[in-house]
């Protein structure tokens, strides 16, 4: 048997350190070659690290959420044959590893971000997406409490271990031992009674909830938090909201969707993208990236449109490159492809980089007004609110129209309000007269 020391590789961008997003193995596991071991996060993306060897995990260096220098030992294996580490490598007992399962309290929460195995890369870009609400620890079984809120159950470590093994939450087990301690016999009785006998006479009642759960902000969530903070701290945002009558556009969209079955289904986004592509040449200061350290605005001829996408682990922004060169259906296909890739965690670093302006949409949850956060270092973000039918006055008559708000934010350091408003009005005009979207 030999010892094999696996060092944290340079996972891209020449970074000096990277964050452990989530472990997928624990000490003592037997792993096969190429087995998914750990997720490592750089500034841009989560990278899945696979096992270079088959063997037994002896030591895991670092916990989820910790930074590790590139080149430092990440995992130590015991393998058949000759390893690459000297025999005096640290013994497993001498190095604190990731806490083994029994050490964690039964209700110990797992960081939601870290829980996901292969989520897509993070994006600097970001919009107004509420952070996922931390979920309560799973599998709290019985519905009755036997002690007052705030009274912690008392039990020996051996009893706690057994309760953990049995999946029993001690809070619900009555204790008959000295000073109310829970004994093995109490556990037996609890199990024998199906988990509720001891409190069977207690009527179901509304229980107060107590306790504070700490969810460490790590991994993708931390990246999002840092980017949002940086964007809001450095960019003086101003938002502009305008309503758009999309009745005609919706008719056209439904017509096109009904006409061509072999083409991708059109959502509103390709139309909006096309409107932006047509408008932006007249607003070069808006299709831009601002290097505020150097004091230079980089105006881009190409339109690389970021599409803010909600994924199970958080917000990412894949990029429709050269949107100006795509027709409506090509744009629709590319948006759909990228969204799927992002949700499946398959988006590449290239697909997640280089946008010059961003679109954000909450889809049917889109609300009335929002305040998008600019995807720094871009200078503008266009947010789509929900389409609703509203009574509108047209020619002195009240008519029902399909209306949608556009809520957009701009970097006021380099974009003036007048220009921003003019840009949005131009888009509005194109969307309200959809034929103009297709006229040169």
């Amino acid at each position: 048997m030999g010892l094999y020391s696996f060092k944290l590789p340079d996972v891209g961008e020449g970074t000096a350190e990277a964050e452990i997003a989530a472990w997928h193995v624990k000490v003592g596991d037997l792993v096969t070659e190429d087995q998914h071991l750990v997720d490592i996060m750089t500034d841009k993306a989560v990278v899945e690290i696979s096992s270079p060897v088959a063997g037994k995990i002896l030591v895991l260096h670092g916990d989820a959420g910790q930074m590790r220098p590139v080149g430092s030992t990440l995992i130590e294996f015991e393998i058949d044959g000759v390893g690459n580490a000297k025999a005096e490598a640290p013994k497993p007992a001498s190095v604190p590893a990731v806490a083994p399962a029994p050490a964690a309290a039964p209700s110990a929460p797992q960081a939601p971000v870290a829980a996901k195995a292969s989520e897509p890369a993070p994006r600097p870009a970001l919009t107004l997406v509420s952070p996922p609400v931390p979920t309560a620890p799973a599998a709290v079984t019985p519905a009755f409490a036997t002690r007052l809120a705030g009274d912690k159950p008392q039990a020996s470590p051996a009893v706690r271990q057994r309760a953990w093994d049995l999946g029993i939450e001690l809070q619900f087990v009555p204790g008959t031992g000295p000073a109310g301690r829970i004994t093995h016999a109490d556990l037996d009785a609890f199990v024998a009674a199906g988990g509720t006998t001891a409190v069977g006479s207690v009527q179901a009642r509304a229980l107060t909830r107590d306790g504070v759960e700490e969810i460490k902000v790590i991994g993708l969530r931390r990246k999002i938090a840092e980017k949002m903070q940086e964007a809001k701290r450095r960019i003086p945002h101003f938002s502009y909201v305008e309503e758009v009558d999309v009745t005609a556009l919706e008719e056209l969209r439904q017509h096109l969707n009904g006409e061509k079955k072999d083409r991708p289904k059109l959502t509103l986004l390709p139309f909006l993208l096309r409107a932006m592509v047509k408008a932006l040449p007249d607003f070069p200061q808006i299709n831009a990236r601002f290097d505020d350290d150097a004091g230079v605005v980089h105006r881009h001829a190409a339109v690389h449109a970021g599409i803010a996408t909600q994924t199970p682990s958080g917000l990412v922004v894949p990029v429709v490159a050269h949107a100006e060169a795509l027709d409506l259906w090509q744009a629709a296909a590319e948006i759909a492809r990228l969204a799927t890739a992002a949700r499946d965690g398959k988006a590449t670093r290239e697909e997640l980089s280089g946008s010059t302006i961003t679109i954000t949409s909450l889809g049917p949850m889109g609300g009335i007004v929002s305040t998008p956060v600019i995807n720094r270092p871009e200078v503008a973000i266009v947010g789509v609110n929900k389409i609703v039918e509203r009574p509108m006055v047209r020619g002195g008559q009240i008519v029902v129209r399909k209306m949608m708000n556009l809520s957009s934010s701009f970097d006021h350091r380099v974009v003036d309000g007048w220009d921003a408003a003019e840009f949005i009005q131009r888009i509005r005009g194109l969307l309200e007269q959809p034929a103009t979207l297709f006229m040169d």
Partner: protein
Amino acid sequence: MPAMNMIQALRSAMDIMLERDPDVLVFGEDVGFFGGVFRCTEGLQQKYGKRRVFDSPIAEAGIVATAVGMGAYGLRPVVEIQFADYIYPATDQLISEAARLRYRSAGDFTAPLTVRAPYGGGIFGGQTHSQSPEAIFTHVAGLKTVIPSTPYDAKGLLIAAIEDDDPVMFFEPKRIYNGPFDGHHERPVTPWAKHPASDVPDGYYTIPLGQANVVRPGDAVTVLAYGTMVHVALAAAEDSGVDAEVIDLRTLNPLDLDTIVDSVKKTGRCVVVHEATRIGGFGGELSAVVQEHCFYHLEAPVQRVTGWDTPYPHAFEWEYFPGPKRVAEALRQAVEA
């Protein structure tokens, strides 16, 4: 086999080693002509001469320093400190020189000396004749620490200590030199002659360092003890009726972790007993290793029964000495927790 008390067993060990190995020497205060304050070396000078068994000045630092130098040059000195309480002048030589020599010289030199020192209370020796300083030395990397509890173990462990290439602190529980003592000071003392552990072979044998001995099997609670306290723990198990498993550690460093862990995992409870004061005592280390290795098997907190945190009181010796009553109470508390 002859019946020996612990003094005789220790003398037998030194006699055998002086005979077997010409590099072995015995020296210390009054160990030559007089045969030692407790007569452990009686007759050895007459048998092996003044070049191999000799008296030293009353200078503990000098005794140990000389032994370190002898060891470096290939001899195997066995030195006696009359009482463990007097060892402190020699601690610099032990800690700074003896313990480090092998490491400092990358193995070119060793300090294979054995330091014998009677320790512990129960004999009304007062402050300066009753201390238990073993924890000081277990803390020093490079030193080994041995404490026997029977004549049989004393001989086998002392021979192993003399043969060991590292410096060994060999603390002898003087309260049980002449017979086992169960802590019931009001009872007549039983001599070793009536105890099975006094069946000591005449010839050579060793007991490996680092091997504990389960002296009483049991299922309810593990008692970790050494020296005189082994006998106190056995008495407490009988008195309390608690089915205690009593482990005689025999060597504190190296420690037989496997035996300890196996037992505590079986019983789920642990009581540590020693004569030394509590704060910083070796019981703290034992308690910690049990917690580290057996935490999820523990049914109760690890308890310590120790001397009090005062100098050893002459007038209140039996109040200070951890007797079977206190140990039995701890056993009961452990099983009722």
